[in-house]
Structure formats: C-alpha cells, structure tokens
C-alpha cells in the first residue's frame, strides 16, 4: 500500500470525517495519522469541531413567529384564491358569453315570429306622430285614445298594400278640421274609409299654457299580415 504524505492527508481529513472517502483512502489516511502526530492532532480537532457544532443548542422557535407565519400564509393563500377564482370565472364565462347572447337573441326572434304567426287575419295599426308644433314648457301636443280609432285600426276590411300617412288638422274641440293624405294607396275605397273614420274621430286637443289650441297630427297606418 502506497503511503500518504501530510499534505494529502490534511486535504482528505474534512471528507474523511464525513465518511465521504473510499474505503481504500480511509485506510491510507488512518495508517498515516497513526504514525504522524501533527496530522493526528489535526484530525482530532476536526472531529472535535464537528461534535461542538452538532452539540449547539437549537434555538427555541418563537411562538408568535409560527402564528404570524400561519396568518400571513393564510392571507396570501386567500388573496390568491380570490384572484384565481376571478380568473377562473373569466376563463369559464368568456367562451360562454357569445353563444349565450346568440341564444337569447335567437329565442327572442323565435318568439317574435311565433307570436306574429299566431295572430289571425290582417291587423292595421295606427301610430300617431307628434305634429311639428314647437314642443316647449307648457305646450301639450294633441293625442287620442278614441275607441273609434281603435276600431279603425283593427278593421280587416281595408286592403292596405302600402303604409298610409295622413296629416290631420285638429281643432280646439278635438275634431278633425282638415286632413291631407301624404302617402298611401290611392283607391277610392281607402279614401272613403279615411273620410268616414276621421269625421267620427275625437282627439284630445293640444294645449298651450293650459288652453286648447289648433294643431296638426300625423297618423300612420301600417298593415301587418301573417
């Protein structure tokens, strides 16, 4: 067996006390230190220091540290949980929003068509438009809730192929003074029907500062068919 010099022995001592040398190296070192007093002392001091360090008292962990650690960790975890929940919600909802909106729109459209098809016959709807009289402060425009107009609107005798628009001049008493057909079918039948209906119609006259005044109202009739 080859002998070991002091320099090599000292280099090996640290790993030797940790049992990190091969059995052959360990044996050579042991032979050397058995014969070499300075190296023996050196090895002894390494072993003694290792024991000294291993015998150090473990510091007592402060109780408040454990508690504070738990609290801070809990806060951090909950904070993160909220953020994660929000992200997850976005992640889940984002792909759903567009189809959901599409579905709702489709449903509304479907019900609209369905309700339209359930209605029987032809219905004429009257829509009043405010005249172009100035609208300000104490001015109340002409309007109507006259059942005659409703009867007129629900009549299915008239054959309106195109929308009918009539500009109507309403007097202080709420009666039609004059009218002009702005657009609509030019048939005599429709003209007669307009004349008959408007002569019977009763409007609530427009008022300015509380007093009834003459005014104009545009009436529109549209045929809705199924």
């Amino acid at each position, binding site marked *: 067996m080859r002998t070991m010099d002091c320099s090599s022995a000292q*280099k090996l*001592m*640290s*790993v030797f*006390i*940790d*049992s*990190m*040398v*091969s059995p052959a190296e360990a044996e050579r070192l042991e032979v050397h230190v058995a014969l070499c*007093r300075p190296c*023996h*002392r050196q090895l*002894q*001091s*390494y072993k*003694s*220091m*290792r*024991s*000294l*360090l*291993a*015998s*150090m*008292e*473990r*510091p*007592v*962990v*402060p109780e*408040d*540290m*454990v508690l*504070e*650690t*738990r609290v*801070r*960790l*809990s806060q*951090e*975890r909950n904070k*993160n*949980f909220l953020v994660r929940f929000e992200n997850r919600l976005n992640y889940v909802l984002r792909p759903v929003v567009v189809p959901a909106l599409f579905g709702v729109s489709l449903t509304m459209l479907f019900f609209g068509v369905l309700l339209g098809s359930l209605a029987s016959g032809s219905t004429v709807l009257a829509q009043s438009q405010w005249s172009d009289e100035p609208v300000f402060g104490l001015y109340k425009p002409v309007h109507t809730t006259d059942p005659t107009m409703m009867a007129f609107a629900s009549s299915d005798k008239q054959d309106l192929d195109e929308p009918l628009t009539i500009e109507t001049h309403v007097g202080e008493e709420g009666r039609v003074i004059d009218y002009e057909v702005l657009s609509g079918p030019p048939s005599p039948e429709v003209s007669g029907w307009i004349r008959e209906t408007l002569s019977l119609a009763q409007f609530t006259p427009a008022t300015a500062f509380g007093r009834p005044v003459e005014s104009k109202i545009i009436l529109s009739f549209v045929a809705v068919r199924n």
Partner: protein
Amino acid sequence: MPREIAYNWLDRPAELSAQEALFVVRLQANEDAAYDELVRTYNASIYHVAFRMLGDAAEASDVVQEIFLKVFRNIKGFKGEAALKTWIFKIAFSEILNRLRWWKRRHRFATVSLDERPNGVPTSETVPDTGPTPEEILQCKEREGAIQQALGRLSHEHRSIIVLRDIEGFSYNEIADVLGISMGTVKSRIARARADLKKSLMRYLSVQHL
C-alpha cells in the same frame, strides 16, 4: 443535546417519495391542512438555519415568514426533481443570502449578546431552579456565543456550508442541490470553511494526543 448526523460516503441524492409527492399535490391544491403540516414540519429547521446564518432572532423570524410565502408562491412550479426538503431549503438559502447581501450593502454587522439565549430571551429570566449550575450555563452560553461569532466572521459561502453540513446535517448531495454547486465544490468548500472556522474555535476544541 447532540443530534445524530448521518454520514455515508455513497451519499445518494434524496428523491421525492410517494408520500411526499402526495403531500406536494395537497400543497398545490391549496389544502389548509397541508399548509399547517408544512409549517409544523419545517418552521423549526428553517428558523434554526436562518438564526445561525443571520445571528439575529427577529431577522430570522421575519425571513422564515418570507420563506414560507415564497414556498407557497412557487409550489406550483415544483416538479419533484429533488426532495421537497431540498427544494424548500434552496428557497430558504436564496432568501437568507439575499438578506445578508442587503445587510452587507448597508454595512450592518450582526452582533450576538452573550446575555441572550438564541431565541432572544435573556438568560436571567430562563434559568431553571434545577439542572445545570449558573457557571455551566454561563460557559455554555459563552461557547455558543463564540461559535455564533465565529460563524459570523466566515464568508456567506462558508457559513452556509457549515450550517448545512455540521449544524443541520445535510448530505453532500443535498448541499449541492440547495446551494446549486457541484459535489466537487461542496467537498473543497466545506474543507476550506472548516479550516477557517477551526482557527476561531481552537480554544473550545479538545485534542487527544497520541
């Protein structure tokens, strides 16, 4: 009381056991009980390392909390290449060394009072009626203080390796993983660190002559 430190020249690298893998899954699932267990299991050893490295109870306490927060923030990224303990101490040493560098930049030096126990409680308040005599306690405190001061005089690199190996009993492979250095560097660095430390602690070492 001296602790048993395992020494084995084969020094196999620590791997993630099935039980530990399950524990990691629970941590990654943010389970309350798992985090309680994590703190219970590791707070003492991390605090001990932090205290030995920083030499200050309040700083050690503060850094331990930061370490656990970092463990929580990074647990999703833990892939199990090493044991959980190694991974946690890697985070711990990164945090502790950052704090030491921060101190160094501000020219602040830690001092250890011989009147204080390691947990920061004055000795006079904790001396029990029975057990070691006041002289023995004083000697013990003096020795502990001298070791802590000697550790404080070491470079950060040498102090880290002494704390991990000789105080906490980590294996060479674990040290290599924790400090991110090769096995060869672990061996040479620990030899130099011990040689440095030995000079400061000579009066406390008992040497039997041939």
